[in-house]
C-alpha cells in the first residue's frame, strides 16, 4: 500500500466515522424520549434503534449491568416484574455491540431463586453467552460509597458489580407503589442497594430516592410499559392494564415522567409533578419532568 492509497482509505474511514458519528449525535439530540408501541421484544428493538443503537452506550469489551425489576416470584402477567422479552432483547443487543459480559442483577424482595424462576427472566436469558441473571442477597456483594450530594443519605451500600461495571442500563416496569405512588426507574434503583429499610423508616423516602439517583446514574433507561400494574403495587396482585409501550431515554426523570402518563393510577390520572420523588429529583436537577416540553419520538411496530 502506498501513501496515496493509505490516505484515501484512511480518509474514507475518517469521513465515514464522522458521518456515522454525526448521525448518532443527531439522534441523540433529536429526541429526549423514544416511545414505541408494540410487542415487548420488537418494541424494545425498535426503541434501541431509534436511540441510535445500543453501541452508543455499550462499547466493545465492556461489562454491562442490566437492572430489571425481578423482585417478586410472580409470572409476567402480574405486572410486578419487567417483561423477560425486554431483558433478553437488551442483553442480546449488548452482546452484539461487543459487551464482554452482561450481568442481569436485582436484590429481590422475595426468595431470590424463586424470583428468577417465576419472573421468567432467567429462562429467557438461558443460552445467551456471557449473560448472567443473578439475585444478590448477601451483604458481601455490596460496597459502601459516599453520597456527596446527599441531603438525607450520606452513605449507601451499592452492589459492587454496579460500581465496577462500565455501563448500567435500567429496565424498570411501570407499576403502582403503596409508598411512593409509582415505582419505575428511579424507585427501581433501590434494588441495587443493601439497606432498603432505612429508606422507609429513617429517611424521607422521596428525598432519599433523589439522593440515590445522584450516585447511581444509568446511562440508559428502558421502561417496560407493556403492562402496568395500576393497583396493588409493587407486589400485586392488582389490576394490570396493557399500555403496550416501551419508553427509552437517557434522562431518568423524563422516562419515569412519561411512565406516569401512560395509565391511570388507582383509577386517577396523574401528572409526573404529582409524584413526589420525581418532583424532588427534578428540582435537584436530575432531569426534566414536564413531558409536554420534551421532544418525543413516537412509533409503532
Amino acid at each position, binding site marked *: 500500500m502506498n501513501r496515496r492509497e493509505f490516505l484515501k482509505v484512511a480518509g474514507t474511514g475518517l469521513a465515514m466515522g464522522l458521518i456515522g458519528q454525526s448521525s448518532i449525535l443527531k439522534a441523540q439530540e433529536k429526541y429526549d424520549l423514544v416511545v414505541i408501541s408494540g410487542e415487548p421484544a420488537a418494541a424494545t428493538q425498535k426503541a434501541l434503534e431509534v436511540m441510535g443503537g445500543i453501541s452508543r452506550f455499550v462499547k466493545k469489551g465492556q461489562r454491562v449491568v442490566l437492572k430489571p425489576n425481578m423482585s417478586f*416470584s410472580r409470572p409476567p402477567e*402480574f405486572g410486578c416484574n419487567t417483561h423477560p422479552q425486554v431483558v433478553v432483547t437488551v442483553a442480546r443487543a449488548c452482546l452484539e455491540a461487543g459487551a*464482554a*459480559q452482561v*450481568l442481569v442483577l436485582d436484590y429481590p*424482595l*422475595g*426468595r*431470590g*431463586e*424463586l424470583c428468577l424462576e*417465576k419472573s421468567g427472566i432467567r429462562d429467557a436469558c438461558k443460552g445467551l453467552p456471557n449473560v*448472567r441473571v*443473578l439475585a*444478590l*442477597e*448477601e451483604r*458481601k*456483594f455490596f460496597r459502601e460509597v459516599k453520597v456527596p450530594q446527599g441531603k438525607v443519605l450520606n452513605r449507601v451500600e451499592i452492589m459492587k*458489580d454496579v460500581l465496577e461495571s462500565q455501563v448500567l442500563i435500567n429496565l424498570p416496569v411501570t407499576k*403502582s*407503589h*403503596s*409508598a*411512593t*405512588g*409509582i415505582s419505575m426507574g428511579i424507585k427501581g434503583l433501590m434494588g441495587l442497594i443493601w439497606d432498603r*429499610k432505612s429508606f*422507609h*423508616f429513617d429517611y424521607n423516602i422521596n428525598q432519599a430516592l433523589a439522593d440515590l439517583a445522584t450516585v447511581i446514574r444509568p446511562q440508559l433507561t428502558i421502561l417496560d410499559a407493556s403492562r402496568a400494574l395500576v*393497583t*396493588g403495587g*409493587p*407486589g*400485586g*396482585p*392488582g*389490576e*394490570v392494564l396493557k399500555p403496550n409501550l416501551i419508553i427509552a431515554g437517557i434522562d431518568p426523570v423524563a422516562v419515569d415522567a412519561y411512565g406516569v402518563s401512560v395509565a391511570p*393510577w*388507582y*383509577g*386517577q390520572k*396523574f401528572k409526573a*409533578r*404529582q*409524584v*413526589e*420523588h420525581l*418532583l424532588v429529583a427534578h428540582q435537584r436537577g436530575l432531569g426534566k419532568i414536564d413531558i409536554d416540553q420534551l421532544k418525543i419520538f413516537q412509533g409503532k411496530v
Partner: protein
Amino acid sequence: MRAFLQALSLFLFTLLFIFAAYGLPEWLPADLYLRLDPLLTLSALLAKKEYITRALWSIIIVGATIFIGRFFCGYVCPLGVTIDLGHFFFWRKIKFFHFAKDKVLRRLKFYLLLITLSAALGGLTISALFDPIPILTRFYTFTLYPLVITIFNLILDILRPLSTIFGWSTLQHSHYAQPVYYMSLITFLIFGLIIFLNRYAPRFWCRYLCPLGALLSLISPLGLFKRRVNQNCTSCLKCQKSCPMGAVAADPRQTHLSECIQCRTCAQVCPEKAISFLPKLSSSIAGEHASPDLSRREFLYGVPFGLVIASLTDRTPYTPLQGKSWLIRPPGAIPEDEFLKTCIRCGECMKSCVTNTIQPSLWESGLAGLWTPKLDLRFAACEQNCHVCGQVCPTQAIRALSLEEKNHAKIGTAVLRREMCLVWAENKICLICDEICPYNAIVFRTIEGFRRPVVIPSKCNGCGWCEQKCPIQGEAAIVVVPMGEIRLKDGSYIKEAKRRQLEFRPDPGDDKYILEQSGLEAEKESSPAATKPKGFL
C-alpha cells in the same frame, strides 16, 4: 461386593436427601428410605389406626427379609453404613473384648421395639427417636446439611478474589442460602453418641439398641440365605471373633440367626473355607437359635411399660390444649391429634422447605410433639410457589397437595397488634405488611383520622410474609396465630375454603376501595389532595 452395595446405598440416600428440595419432580420419592422402613410405618399405622398408602412400600423390605434374611442391616441401612465407616476410621485397630453383659444388652433392642410398638398402640409415636432412618435423616438435615453449606460458602469466599480476577462470574456471585435449625446440636450429640458407642463393641447400636434391627430379626430366621458351616471347621473361633454382630454361637458351627446380618465376614476370615451362605430350602425354621432371647415374661413386661409411657406422655395439659395449639403447622398437616400420631419426626419437610421456615419443635407441644415440624414465621414465611413439604412426607402427616390446593390450606390468620404497630401506635408511615402480602389481605383504612393497616381475615391464609417482614424490633406487630387454620384428613381444601367463604385469589377491586379514602392524614380530606393515593402530591 458388600462395601460396594453399602456405598451405593449411602450414596442413594444422600442423593435423595439432596433432591428433597423445592423443584422436586412429582414422580421422585425423595422419602424412599423412610417409606421402606417397616418399623416407622408399622408404628404410624398402629398409632393412627388407619390405612396409610405410602406405608405399603415397607412391604418390600418385609418381604425381602422373609425371603433373604436380615440383609437390610448389612447392606442397605444407611446408618449401618455410617457406623461401619466410623468403625473403619476410628476403631479399626482396637481389640474388642467380649461383653460380659452382652446377652442382657442384646435384649435392649427388643425392649425398645416392644415399647415403641406398644406406645404406638397407645397413640404415641416414638419410633422416630430410636429408628435408624429418621435418626440419620435428622442428622443430615439439622447438622450435616447446614455444615456443608457453610463450608461451601467458605470455599466460595476464599475463591472469590480469584474468581473476580479471572472473571468466572458464576463462581464470583455464588452464595448458598445458609439453612439453620433449632436443634442442630442436640441432634449432633445423639448421632455422635451412636457412632461413639462402637468404641465398645462393633455395631454397638445394631447389636443392642436398634429397634428396626430387632423387628427385622424377628422375621429374618425364615430367610433363604443362612450361614452354614461344613465338616472342615476346626473350631478355631476366628469367625466368632470377627463377627461384627456377635452372631456366632459358642459352638462356632451354630449361628444366632436373628442376629446375623449376612455380612459374610466370617466366610472371608475362615482359614478352612468352611462357611457358606448358599441359599437352601430347609423344612424347619433353621432350628438353632432362631428366636430372639426374650422370654414371655419379659415380653409381658415390655408391652404394659410402653402403654404406660404412652399414656403418661399423653395425659398432660398439652393433649386437651391441642385444640388451642399455638403452633403453626405446615400447610396440609392433618388434624393435630392425628398429626402427632402420624408424624415420624424425620425432618424431611424441614430439609425440603424452600424458605427454611419449618423448624423442629422442642417442648412447645409437649413430649408427644418433640421434633415435630412447626413454622417459625418471624424467621421466614411460607412460600406461595412451593408445596414440597407434603411431597416428601413419608407418612403423609403433611398431605401431598397440588400448589392450588396447598395455597387454600390456611395455616393461620394474621393478627395486628395495634399497641406495637408503627402506624397504629406512632402514626409512622409504614406499609411493609401491605406491600408484601401476596393475597391482598392487608388494607389501609382511615380510622380516627389516620390511615391504618387492617387485616381481612377471610383473605389471609397465614403465610406469614407480614410477620417476617414487620420492621419493628423483637416480636412482630403483626403475628400469625393458628386461628382459622384448615386441617383436613382428606378432601379438598379449595372446597373447604369456599365453604368457609375464604378468598385467597387476587382481587384487584379491593385496593381501589382503600385508596378512595387514602391520604395519610384525614385532616387533609377537605383538600383535593386527600383523595389521592399515597406518594402522589
